[in-house]
């Protein structure tokens, strides 16, 4: 299993970084720039890892990014990768969807602790904005997830995946839930219009302000691993999982590109605008889906 986990982390790392490069590239092309190469994020990461010095404000600042990386890797382990494959199944069967929802916030907690220990008020402002945004962001996502759990009467992700073989993709069976979850996902990926926590114009770059050298590299790497985990989770829950690696890459890419396109079109919401918006339309869409399941499912 250890070998599989290492393989999984490497896969997530590579795919995540390529996606991130793709994101920068596509954004640039749409804005009429040439943009960096797809591998630019790799180069950045390698450069940052090999910096001679990295500023640290004490042991909590040091451990924060490590907690964050641990959270991401742990999240990744609990997300089943393929349909009908034994790949890491023994690990995914140890958890469930609720566990995953809470594991997903473990990383941000480590980050928040490090930012707090770093003592930059802009960083903390970013964290607080992030956590406040989370209030709005989680609501449509939770509605979607709860809808799926109630429909499947199980919080086991593998079970939810298996169910879709007979009923068809959840994306089509529960379209309202899918839309609600996708709107949340835009925010989870830090794309516009919900990108206020790390807004460079307002709060430097928010939580990441004080990190440099290997800490920044670690944050970048775990970010790409975490992004991959989130994409696979969406594919598992709504797109019926994947049978092969190519299918997985195709489906995650489709989700990712959709998120990029949404993100590019919109400007940045203020914090209160973002939460207010999320508590209206996306929540309403989600609730319609939920009511469908409870009373008409």
């Amino acid at each position: 299993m250890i070998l599989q986990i290492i393989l999984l982390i490497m896969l997530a790392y590579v795919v995540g970084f390529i996606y991130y490069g793709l994101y920068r590239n596509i954004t640039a092309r749409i804005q009429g720039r040439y943009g960096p190469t797809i591998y630019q994020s790799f180069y950045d990461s390698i450069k940052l890892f090999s910096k001679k010095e990295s500023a640290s404000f004490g042991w909590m600042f040091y451990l924060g990014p490590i907690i964050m990386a641990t959270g991401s890797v742990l999240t990744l382990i609990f997300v089943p990768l393929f349909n009908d494959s034994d790949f890491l199944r023994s690990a995914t069967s140890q958890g469930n969807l609720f566990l995953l929802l809470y594991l997903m916030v473990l990383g941000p907690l480590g980050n928040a602790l490090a930012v707090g220990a770093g003592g930059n008020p802009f960083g903390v402002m970013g964290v607080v904005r992030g956590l406040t945004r989370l209030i709005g962001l989680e609501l449509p996502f939770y509605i979607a997830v709860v809808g799926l759990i109630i429909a499947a009467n199980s919080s086991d992700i593998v079970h939810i995946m298996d169910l879709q073989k007979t009923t068809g993709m959840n994306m089509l069976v529960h379209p309202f839930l899918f839309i609600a979850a996708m709107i949340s996902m835009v925010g989870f990926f830090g794309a516009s219009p919900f990108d206020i926590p790390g807004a460079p114009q307002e709060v430097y770059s928010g939580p990441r302000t004080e990190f440099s050298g290997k800490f920044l590299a670690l944050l970048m790497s775990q970010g790409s691993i975490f992004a991959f985990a989130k994409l696979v989770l969406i594919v598992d829950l709504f797109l019926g999982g994947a049978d092969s690696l190519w299918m997985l890459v195709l489906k995650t890419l489709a989700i990712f590109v959709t998120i990029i396109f949404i993100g590019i079109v919109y400007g940045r919401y203020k914090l209160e605008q973002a939460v207010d918006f999320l508590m209206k339309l996306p929540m309403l869409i989600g609730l319609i889906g939920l009511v469908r399941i409870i009373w008409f499912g």
Partner: protein
Amino acid sequence: MNSIFVLINLLFIGFFYQFGGDLHVSVALTKEFTFSLVQTPLGTFFAYLSLVSFLLVTIAQKSKEVSCNYYVLQLILNVAMFVIVLAGDFITFFIGWEIMTWSSYFIISKSQSIDIKSLQKYILFSLASAFSLIAGMVIVYSFTNSFDFSVISNSFGTIPFDMKVTIVVLFSLSFFTKAGVIGLHYWVVDTYSKAPDLFSSILSAVMSKMGIYGLLLVYGKLIGYDELRDMFGAVLNGTDFGYVLAWIGVATSIIATFKAITQDEVKRLLAYSSIAQLGYIIAVIGLGTSFGVAGALYHTLLHTVIKLLLFINVAAIVAQTGKNKFSELGGLIYRTPVSFVMLLIGIIALAGMPPLAGFASKFMIYNAAVDTKFALILVGMLFSGAASFLYCYKLVYGIYLGHPTSKELETQKEVPVSYLVPQVILSIILVALGAFPGAFIKVINPILKEFSLDTIAYDSLGIMNSAVGSFNGLFVMSGFATIFVVILLLVLRLKSKAKNNLNRFDISYCGEIPTEKTSLHYGYGFGTELYRIKFVNAILKRSSSHFYEALAIQTKKTSGLFSRMYYGNIHNTMIIILLFFSALFFIGVN
């Protein structure tokens, strides 16, 4: 002196452990009323909870700071709670309840920061709770002719329907007040924040749980969940009764969570958080399923442990620095590192994050909601859980992280060992239960049998089972530890070295160099964003104090009316009294 009372507490637990098991004491008070203690699995669980909490708080107490009668009052309170949870009839229960009210009232009145208004609030609400309890008791007695719990539970079905409803409402109101359900929580925040610092931990961790015990006793044993289902009907996979209660609980937890985030005083934040966490328990206590009761019990245990830990931690910091506001604290992490780690463990568990125990109880509660298909309830609980991350972070950031807000904070020393010992014990419990969440199933199952509910499947210590999924706490804990250590070693092995001797002013600050005078702590501004969000603002600007103040004014006016009637003109008064009684007479005749 402290050691004497620690010893007394230890002996108390020791005796209970040794001679408990099947305790049955009955002393006749009068011809009809008896004082009886009967040991049940439910009572035993709560008894140990309160006994151990009192022991830990007594360890933390410094004898220099309090007088001997404080200790004695605390001991009386301890015995009173013991009597409540082991009571075999309502008379005994009520005796314990009254002693608890009065002894805690005297302890709270010993605080330095208490004012007469908060004390009045506390005693008024406690009395209201007691009156509602006694009214319920008397109605039950008038139909069953007995105060004995076993007799009542056998003959509860014979009571007419409207009286049954009245009984349920009266008992619920009484225990809701103790637990601090929103609307009835008016006394909670002031009392918790102004009580002696260490005693707040008892108030939040143990005394509020007496409300939970009362609810479980009345719903689960005296009335029975089946009876409640028959009385009120069913909705989805659960009962109407459970659904209403769940909404009350969810509303409590959401409103209190937002209120908690905007508090500037540390203990007020903890008080609101306490209300919010009890909201979770209230939300599942009425479901009447195994997982509902199990979730309520598990969360009771964990909330007790967490709130003891947090309140003791905060009490130590307040005693050490003399400051109790987020805007006055900050940057203590490198001065009091052990306290920081303890608080960190506490808030991770409070937020319900996986490697620690907090997740297990939340998982149980969520599964109970899935089991009954209460989807909106579940969304509400998850939502309030997500919002609670904010106050958890505020707690750790406002006190320990960021920058010190005054010179004295930069020269603080670690808090005294007496405060740290109970915290270490409590955090070990949190870590151990995080790795072995299944251990608690063994405690719960006898209680579920007592309520004649299905027991929960038990596989091994590490695995937590539920109706709609399971998780392996041991796997999560060891996975977290392994990955953490591996990444840490990798980062340590990198050629790149951390530059550690940075000054706290070496930060990016818009191109300027911050000085001592620059305010860099974000403690006060925390949570102000919430006021700009419409939905949250709508919650925050409402307050139950408006209602109670209006009530007080109306009461005064009404009593003023009566007093004018009496003092104004004696003829008019006599005529009114005559008319009143003649009206009563006619009503009586008809």
